[in-house]
């Protein structure tokens, strides 16, 4: 059955890896600011950005040798914090092709896998699309 894409104020299409620049940081800051103002936001991840929310990351990063007792949240935990805080406003999609190609399966349960050839439907569902980074 065809999935209906809900409307959104902004679609943030994240293409780049989370470690090559601060694009992810900027995207999260932007999403947070939009969500705090009541906007509806769709996130779409492609390429290595799909790895942000892969289940294998667990809740925390590996330990810090210089601060052994401190827990540092994984990007998965940060993604879940965002989804927990704005369950009605934020929807997170991930490109099925990229998710499989980059070994990011399985993702967190709340991330919705979508075929890449449906991307245009997501663009059509959003009033504004911001395309961030390159695969």
């Amino acid at each position, binding site marked *: 059955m065809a999935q209906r894409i809900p409307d959104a104020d902004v679609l943030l299409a994240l293409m780049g890896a989370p470690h090559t620049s601060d694009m992810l940081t900027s995207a999260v*800051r932007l999403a947070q600011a939009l969500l705090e103002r009541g906007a509806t936001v769709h996130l779409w991840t492609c390429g290595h950005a799909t790895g942000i929310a892969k289940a294998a990351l667990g809740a925390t990063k590996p330990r810090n040798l210089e601060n052994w007792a401190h827990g540092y949240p994984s990007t998965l935990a940060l993604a879940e914090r*965002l989804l927990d805080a704005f369950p009605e406003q934020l929807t997170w999609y991930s490109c099925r092709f990229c998710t499989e190609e980059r070994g990011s399966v399985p993702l967190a349960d709340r991330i919705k896998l979508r075929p890449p050839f449906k991307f245009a439907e997501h663009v059509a569902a959003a009033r504004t699309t911001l395309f961030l980074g390159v695969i």
Partner: protein
Amino acid sequence: MADQTERTDREDGPGRRLLVIERAYRGALETQFADVLYLARELNRQLGGVDVLLRGLAVTFAAADTRPAPSVRVGHDTLDTLPSPRDSVRSLLEHGAGVYVDAADLAHFEAGPGWLQPGVRRAGGPDAPGPDWSAYRDVFFV
């Protein structure tokens, strides 16, 4: 293997390594404490001493002023464990690493006296030629 003696470069002989860091802003949310300077501290410990040359935007790692503390709001929480390169440079200096900054790149920030942390050296110009690459055992771009 159990019967092999663990090798370290400290036993192999003298010679420091030079680490050249040219890129800043490498994904703060994912990286947090495990940034390039965390690697530099570990290389300094394992390889018997390193010096660091900061270029490009990475020269800001050596700024003295650590304000504002880097943090970002995520959901209902504030994440305050983002990379803190200025604190990390201070830690590197305390652990015996030499830290140089490229003077030409520093000039983009109009960095006056007191802008750099104590102990950080400017590299560039006739009075401050910077590290002699040929004197190092290795030069690593990290």
